[in-house]
């Protein structure tokens, strides 16, 4: 796949005629490299920025998983079992929500950029912030109620 000659690059932002040229896209499982038709290929820098944002979300999820590993598996805590499990499952649950949402968000942003539309709003930052705040509260509770 890496050496395929029809591999598609991102044309300049002014090039809005590229997808009329009959490029063979049928064999691409995901539709296209960056969101698929319709619309025009966005500036490659925007596509790359979107990719990095996706990766940053994945690292956020991984950090939450690291916390869950510490609470559920690694560190001996003399917490109430219910609190320990609640903290661990909240962290893993948040991580799963983020990993489900991150690729969807990536493709939505990509489609919006292709159509030159405003970027869609995302509830994920609020969900993550509230979730982490609740986990912090549960950790405090666990420390004082054992």
């Amino acid at each position, binding site marked *: *796949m*890496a*050496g395929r*000659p*029809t*591999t*598609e*690059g*991102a*044309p*300049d932002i002014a090039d809005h005629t590229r997808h009329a040229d009959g490029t063979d896209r049928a064999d691409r*499982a*995901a*539709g296209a*490299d*960056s969101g698929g038709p319709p619309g025009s290929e966005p500036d*490659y*820098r925007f*596509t*790359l*920025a*979107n*990719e*990095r944002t*996706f*990766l*940053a979300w*994945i*690292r956020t*999820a*991984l*950090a*939450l*998983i*690291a916390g*869950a*590993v*510490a609470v*559920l*598996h*690694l*560190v*001996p805590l003399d917490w109430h079992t219910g609190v320990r*499990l609640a903290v*661990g*499952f909240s962290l*893993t*649950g948040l*991580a*799963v929500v983020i*990993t*489900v949402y*991150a*690729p969807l968000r*990536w*493709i939505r942003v990509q489609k919006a950029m292709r159509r030159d539309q405003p970027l869609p709003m995302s509830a994920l930052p609020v969900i993550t912030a509230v979730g982490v705040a609740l986990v912090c509260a549960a950790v405090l509770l666990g420390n004082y109620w054992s």
Partner: protein
Amino acid sequence: MSHPGPRDSGLQPERTLLAWQRTVIVFVAVALLYLRDPFEDPAAGGGVDPLYRLAAVLAVVAAVGVLIAHLRRRWRATAHGLHDDATGNPPAPVARPWALVLLSAATAALALVVAAGAVLA
């Protein structure tokens, strides 16, 4: 690394590749963290079966190995992020979309493995 021809002055492909690299590193680090025995005395009981942990971690790290191979191949095929094809534009995205989905799935699987291990213990 030095390359002929013009390159993106913002080094966007390189930055994206570095983002991939640190994501992969964090992933492997978290997987190894889960592989480690608990800090308490294992004779005290309560820990998850080490074989369960090893099998699960190997499964998710195998997916990351596929990603590493894909990134390396694609990075080389695009002249280190210089141009994806004859148009001369950098590759965007650096990895194919299926790689993004695979990374998400592997991360979700790791989270579920950690949660399931707590239930099994």
